[in-house]
């Protein structure tokens, strides 16, 4: 690409030089001049010129122009409201016009104090109104979903929200209805706005028309603090600000990291914070009394009991990790158990690998890829929602997106990938060795030498790789799994909710659980030490790009944080480990991160480390992907392979947030059109799914699903086996149509 040609222009008498084609709003900003805007938002696509707030005078053009729709041209002479009387008058009139029907109920509006309409009216608008007629009044607010309220009186029709819905999330659910002064933002037939990314419209709205039901009437901007941290709920690690008031988290806002999230968040990251205040949150250590009951004990007693359990197990200890621990916590736990007790055995939540470091690039590179190949049977959005948005962006920019169930490329695609300078591979499924298989593929396609070609593995846990590396760094010995297990340590809520870990516990003499919730501890733990949330910890996560990002404590947790008590407990076994994340990180940085990174460098907007040289991943035990079920013969309604998936809106955190209930998956089985047809099943039919057990679910036909599989969310599949029979439920009230049961 040749460098774009520069142009020189004058804005308010200041001469600026920018690349040709730069937006006028950005050009003015370079000159230190503000062109005020409401509707302009480059992340939503081309400007629409809807609000006219940005009026400027351009020499040679008789009428005022919408500055946001112009780009810098050679020799242009522009006057903004600061120097051009005409522009100032135009902006003043625009604001007067916008305010004609605006209710000005600022004292009861959540946006008050951080409202662009207030701010711009104060600076550019009329001080008084000439409006003496009654204003338009409407019912308010109306819920457009359990998480978002809409006040149509306050809407200034900038169309930011509908453009987000149409051109970023591409869900097409939020629209403008009617025309002229009766235009209103609406969904279809009072259906809730149900999309993984719906909450972004709250942040986009420049007035108080779209507000968060969670944050409504909770705080005023001058009473809050915004803590820069990251989201700890998936391996993307979106940069966020946690808004806190009087020691409580009140909302989550995006904190745009242009390489990672581009300022978008998924609804899980945005709306899940009330998990901190769940009813069954554990506040003190608990000790089992009788068979199922717990008794509260002090922290001193808790640590004594933990010490006794650790000593009593005589080294026969297994640790089940969640992949949501900070690297500092995982390292500290590793030091305590491995160095202090010789207990090396850990159950990691997933395989991880550093092989993809050779094909590293920022997530934003997906957005302008020429071709994106997504491999695997899991939806990208269930594993790493923001990656799904980047893929959509690639498609909008003219890139091709190819979805493959398995890593088998045909000759044409292979050729295409070899010859492209902007190709991206994404692995969204099980197996894959934490990216090792994808690295081999990328290497074979010659991606090593092409910085524009990259490959990403979508892990199942937010910090699985960081945890694995930190655990590995804690000691350099390995040991086989102890039999029988004297003590099982369950670290974190995800491990505590994992059926495989539960099964392991059956074989253990004792269980020590580190969890936030009573519901996850009851019935199996002998000792419970309360855990904290990612919003309450200092430390670091490694995201799916391999970027080390920093978590900052947003609020003081109701219990001591893990690092603190692990450090104390470690001292009892002669292991020295700091209770401060920054010092533990320094120790880790030496061993794992090549002595380069420091806690300070990681900072608030973490950089991406450079690419590593490609090293063939170590051969690992082959875990074959189950072969696709053979295509059933024409008239035989054979079995289908059960494809279990873990939806984005699931897991112990989401389960504790009632506002997110509407986002959780329905009790459905998804079928390919051909499979459904063969069984005379129609969309919405009630169907029977059977293997060892029987379930009744609703059928949904998914045109993109390959034939031969039945896709069911983990929470609804329960204990079904790996192959299932699916048939239409014989309902006594409709004729069963001769379907065999």
């Amino acid at each position, binding site marked *: 690409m040749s460098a774009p040609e520069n142009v020189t222009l004058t804005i308010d008498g200041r001469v600026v030089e920018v690349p040709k084609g730069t937006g006028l709003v950005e050009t003015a900003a370079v000159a230190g001049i503000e062109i005020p805007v409401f509707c302009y938002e480059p992340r939503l696509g081309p400007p629409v010129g809807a609000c006219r707030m940005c009026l400027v005078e351009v020499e040679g053009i008789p009428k005022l122009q919408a500055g946001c729709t112009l780009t810098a041209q050679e020799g242009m002479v522009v006057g903004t409201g600061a120097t051009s009387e005409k522009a100032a008058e135009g902006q003043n009139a625009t604001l007067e016009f916008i305010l004609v029907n605006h209710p000005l109920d600022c004292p009861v509006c959540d946006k008050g104090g951080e409202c662009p309409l207030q701010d711009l009216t104060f600076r550019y608008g009329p001080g008084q109104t000439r409006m003496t007629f009654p204003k338009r009044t409407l019912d308010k607010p109306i819920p457009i979903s359990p998480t978002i309220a809409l006040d149509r009186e306050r809407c200034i029709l900038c169309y930011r929200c509908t453009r987000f819905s149409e051109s970023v999330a591409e869900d097409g659910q939020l*629209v403008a209805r009617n025309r002229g002064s009766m235009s209103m933002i609406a969904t*279809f037939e009072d259906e809730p706005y149900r999309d993984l990314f719906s909450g972004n419209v709250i942040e986009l709205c420049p007035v108080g028309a779209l507000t968060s039901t969670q944050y409504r009437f909770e705080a005023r901007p001058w009473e809050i603090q915004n803590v820069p941290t990251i989201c700890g709920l998936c391996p993307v690690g979106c940069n966020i600000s946690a808004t806190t008031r009087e020691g409580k988290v009140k909302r989550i806002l995006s904190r745009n990291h242009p390489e990672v999230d581009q300022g978008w968040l998924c609804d899980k990251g945005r709306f899940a914070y009330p998990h901190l205040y769940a009813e069954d949150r554990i506040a003190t250590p608990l000790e089992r009394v009788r068979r199922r009951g717990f008794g509260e004990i002090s922290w001193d007693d808790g640590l004594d009991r933990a010490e006794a359990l650790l000593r009593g197990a005589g080294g026969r200890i297994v640790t089940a990790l969640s992949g949501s621990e900070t690297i500092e916590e995982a390292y500290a736990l590793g030091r305590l158990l491995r160095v202090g007790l010789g207990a090396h055995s850990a159950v990691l939540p997933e395989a991880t690998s550093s092989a993809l470091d050779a094909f590293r690039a920022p997530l934003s590179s997906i957005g302008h890829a020429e071709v994106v190949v997504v491999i695997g049977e899991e939806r990208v959005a269930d594993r790493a929602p923001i990656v799904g948005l980047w893929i959509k962006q690639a498609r909008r920019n003219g890139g091709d997106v190819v979805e493959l169930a398995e890593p088998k490329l045909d000759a044409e695609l292979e050729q295409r990938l070899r010859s492209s300078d902007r190709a991206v591979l994404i692995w969204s499924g099980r197996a894959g060795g934490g990216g090792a298989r994808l690295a081999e593929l990328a290497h074979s396609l010659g991606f090593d030498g092409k910085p524009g070609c990259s490959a990403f593995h979508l892990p199942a846990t937010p910090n699985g790789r960081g945890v694995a590396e930190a655990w590995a760094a804690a000691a350099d010995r390995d040991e086989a799994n102890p039999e029988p297990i004297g003590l099982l340590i369950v670290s974190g809520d995800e491990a505590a909710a994992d059926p495989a870990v539960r099964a392991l516990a059956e074989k253990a003499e004792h269980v020590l659980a580190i969890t936030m919730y009573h519901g996850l501890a009851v019935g199996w733990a002998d000792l419970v030490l309360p855990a904290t949330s990612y919003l309450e910890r200092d430390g670091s996560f490694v995201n799916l790009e391999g970027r080390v990002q920093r978590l900052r404590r947003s609020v003081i947790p109701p219990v001591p944080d893990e690092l603190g008590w692990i450090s104390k407990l470690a001292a009892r076994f002669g292991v020295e480990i700091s209770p401060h994340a920054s010092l533990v990180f320094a120790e880790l940085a030496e061993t794992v991160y090549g002595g380069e990174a420091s806690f300070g460098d990681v900072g608030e907007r973490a950089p991406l480390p450079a690419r590593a040289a490609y090293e063939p991943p170590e051969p690992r035990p082959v875990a074959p992907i189950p072969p696709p079920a053979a295509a059933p013969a024409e008239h035989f309604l054979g079995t289908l392979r059960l494809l279990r998936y873990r939806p984005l809106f699931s897991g112990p955190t989401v389960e504790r947030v009632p506002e997110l209930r509407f986002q959780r998956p329905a009790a459905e089985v998804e079928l390919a059109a051909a499979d459904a047809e063969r069984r005379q099943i129609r969309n919405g039919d009630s169907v029977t799914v059977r293997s060892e057990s029987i379930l009744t679910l609703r059928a949904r036909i998914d045109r993109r699903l390959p034939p031969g599989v039945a896709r069911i969310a983990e929470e609804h599949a329960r204990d079904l086996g790996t192959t299932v029979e699916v048939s239409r439920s014989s309902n006594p009230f409709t004729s069963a149509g001769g379907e065999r049961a």
Partner: protein
Amino acid sequence: MSTLYEEIRELMAVYPEPRSATLPALRLAQEKHGWLSPEALREAAEGLGETPAYCMAVASFYDMFHLAPVGRHLVEVCTNVSCALVGAQQVLEAFERELGVRPGETTADGEVTLRTVECLGGCGWATIVALDHRYRTHVQPADVGAIVEELRADG
């Protein structure tokens, strides 16, 4: 699949940009259902591969799409400038009296809906009244009784 679905698919093939079929698709759906009920919008959306919300948004912009039920017959009186100058208001009032409904309403028996509309492009023959989309020209208040009778007789 409904035939509406197939008809819409055929329409889409006619345009270089399939979305351009939205208006004709909505018209077909309206013809089939009498008005653009939620069900009709859902069907149109399925055919177009768009969301029902998108179809609703488009339909709500245009006057000739009905998002509420209408009677079997539609009387549309132009009240725009040219017609207004030669007494469209009086014509409208005559319809109101004759039918016993206000503009925007439907007679109790569900037979006739009365609406006012903007310029129908027949200014040279004002006042224009569209009866089930067919124009009557030079309509005077005195003609209204006969027109209504005619409509009712049409069953």
